[in-house]
């Protein structure tokens, strides 16, 4: 080692020297994984990685529970209760296992929707998208199979409703799926197969798919940003090595995610429902877990009752098929959100409908949904979201937001920090107003859903009126702030000026 290297070593802090020691011994930075662009150091780029972290936590907690759980109809509930009451940190393990499963499903959904909005499904990442969709289905499969395992009255009844739908499928498919997940031996075979799928088959499939997706991530790299061209162009050339930079960043995200999961587990500890028996089952309304509630609510619409059930399942299947084949349907060249108004609006409508259906299903367990209610709620939601989205596209210029803050009413000196500070404050208020607007939309939709379900009441009409007033205020307020910020490089101000000139003339 020469003098300059000695000086270099001495100038480093002890943490960097420690990291360097591990790196030199283990070869962690030897291009095992490709470097990531600097702009990808953003949590939204790593939602899928966080879903994998949730999967790992489930693997750890599930492996410990496997030491005690016995998958038979007579012992499943008793062994789950034993873990709860007698195993060290047993209730904590069960709670963390459940909540990380919920988080994994939520993160997978957010990852998918983010990918949809920023066009990661487009060339050259089509196969990566399809692999991700398959991973999403496996994740839902984890939820479906894991829900039955405690053998509570709630889980068994809900699973039976799901299994009952297999009969509606076309015959060869119906027999195959039925054999695959239920077998021919009644409850005992059903539980054993669900257990096998949950702890052996699905983890193996997910790991294979994860390997394929990681390989493709290494091949294509992180997706390009779709906003802030100037800002990212400046940083585009900057790559950070996977170790220690990217790996430490991912560990930070994973640590924060773990901390939040633990906190939620402490605040809302799991309680076990009564054991399943046919007699007790009659006293409970069968309802799936929250991530299937939107499907459940679709199936409750009168239009899809009895013979129409196969149409409902075909409709839900069609949604999944469209999502899988999206790269071949949305083939436009541009990836910019600002230039994809139709697809972005469709994505927003889909997200809003899923959320509304899930909340609606949660509020009305076991209640049938009339065709009028369905049309009012689903149509109303689609209309409100479409109008807001398309209006935003009309208001916002078709260009990505600029990164450089602009001068406000009294032009401050460049570089003084005043511009940045004022713009940051305006941006902060703008985000707050948008948040209030989103809450108002939620309040409006909630009032419409409640009125459609339980009839019109003075309270709900008042809530709807207040929500609409707040929404109008948010629209006016955000338009004003948008004018102040002028996100379109002065285009809004020019349009307003042109309008004023035309008005005077």
């Amino acid at each position, binding site marked *: 080692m020469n003098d300059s290297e000695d000086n270099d070593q001495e100038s480093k*802090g002890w*943490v*960097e020297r420690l*990291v360097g020691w591990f790196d030199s011994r283990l070869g962690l930075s030897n291009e095992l994984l490709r470097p990531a662009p600097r702009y990808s150091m953003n949590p939204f780029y790593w939602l899928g990685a966080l879903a994998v972290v949730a999967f790992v936590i489930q693997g750890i907690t599930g492996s410990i529970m496997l030491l005690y759980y016995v998958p038979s109809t007579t012992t499943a509930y008793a062994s789950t209760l034993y873990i709860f009451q007698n195993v*060290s*940190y047993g*209730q*904590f393990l069960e709670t963390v296992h459940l909540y990380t499963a919920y988080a994994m499903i939520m993160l997978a959904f957010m990852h998918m929707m983010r990918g949809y909005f920023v066009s990661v499904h487009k060339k050259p990442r089509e196969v990566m998208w399809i692999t991700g969709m398959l991973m999403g289905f496996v994740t839902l499969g984890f939820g479906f199979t894991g829900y039955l395992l405690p053998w509570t009255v709630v889980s068994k009844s809900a699973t039976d409703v799901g299994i009952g739908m297999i009969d509606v499928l076309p015959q060869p498919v119906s027999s195959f799926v039925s054999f695959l997940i239920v077998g021919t031996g009644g409850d005992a075979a059903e539980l054993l197969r669900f257990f096998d799928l949950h702890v052996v088959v699905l983890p193996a499939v997910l790991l294979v798919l994860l390997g394929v997706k990681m390989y493709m991530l290494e091949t294509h790299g992180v997706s390009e940003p779709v906003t802030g061209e100037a800002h990212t162009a400046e940083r585009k050339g900057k790559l*950070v090595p996977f170790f*220690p*930079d990217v790996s*430490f*960043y991912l*560990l*930070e*995200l994973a*640590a*924060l995610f*773990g*901390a939040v999961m*633990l*906190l939620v*587990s*402490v*605040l809302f*500890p799991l309680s076990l429902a009564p054991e399943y028996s046919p007699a007790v089952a009659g006293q409970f309304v069968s309802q799936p877990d929250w991530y299937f509630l939107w499907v459940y609510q679709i199936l409750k619409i009168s239009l899809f009752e009895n013979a129409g059930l196969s149409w409902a399942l075909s409709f839900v299947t069609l949604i999944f098929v469209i999502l899988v084949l999206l790269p071949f349907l949305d083939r436009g060249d541009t990836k910019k959100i600002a230039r994809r108004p139709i697809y972005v609006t469709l994505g927003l409508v889909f997200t809003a409908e899923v959320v509304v259906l899930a909340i609606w299903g949660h509020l009305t367990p076991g209640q049938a949904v009339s065709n009028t209610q369905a049309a009012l709620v689903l149509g109303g939601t689609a209309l409100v979201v479409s109008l807001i989205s398309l209006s935003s596209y009309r208001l916002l210029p078709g260009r990505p937001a600029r990164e450089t803050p602009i001068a406000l009413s009294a032009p401050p000196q460049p570089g003084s920090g005043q511009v940045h500070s004022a713009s940051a404050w305006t941006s902060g208020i703008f985000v707050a107003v948008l948040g209030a607007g989103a809450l108002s939309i939620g309040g409006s939709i909630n009032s419409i859903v409640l009125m459609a379900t339980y009839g019109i009441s003075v309270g709900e009409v008042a809530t709807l009126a207040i929500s609409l007033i707040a929404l109008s205020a948010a629209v006016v307020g955000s338009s004003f702030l948008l004018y102040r910020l002028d996100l379109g490089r002065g285009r809004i101000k020019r349009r307003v000026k042109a309008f004023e000139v035309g008005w005077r003339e």
Partner: protein
Amino acid sequence: MNNLSDVSASRIFALLLLLGIISVAFLWTLSPVGSQGQTTFAISLSIDLVVFAMASYIYRKSKWKEGVGRAPLIGGCLMLLLLLYVGLTV
């Protein structure tokens, strides 16, 4: 100033390490049976995770020579306070 000086960042880093060590040591003193022990365990582990995330953030930002931002550290401290509050009340 939105960023901390190197000296302040180093001091905070050292404090975080100390808090992490205390928290880990505390974990081993807990009774694993009963809901109270489980709650304390979860909170203590959460504190460890947040401390790690904050220390890693300081290390990463110092390495990139971008300056250690105040806002993420204040956010982390608020999270630690929330965890302590939950640990004391639940």
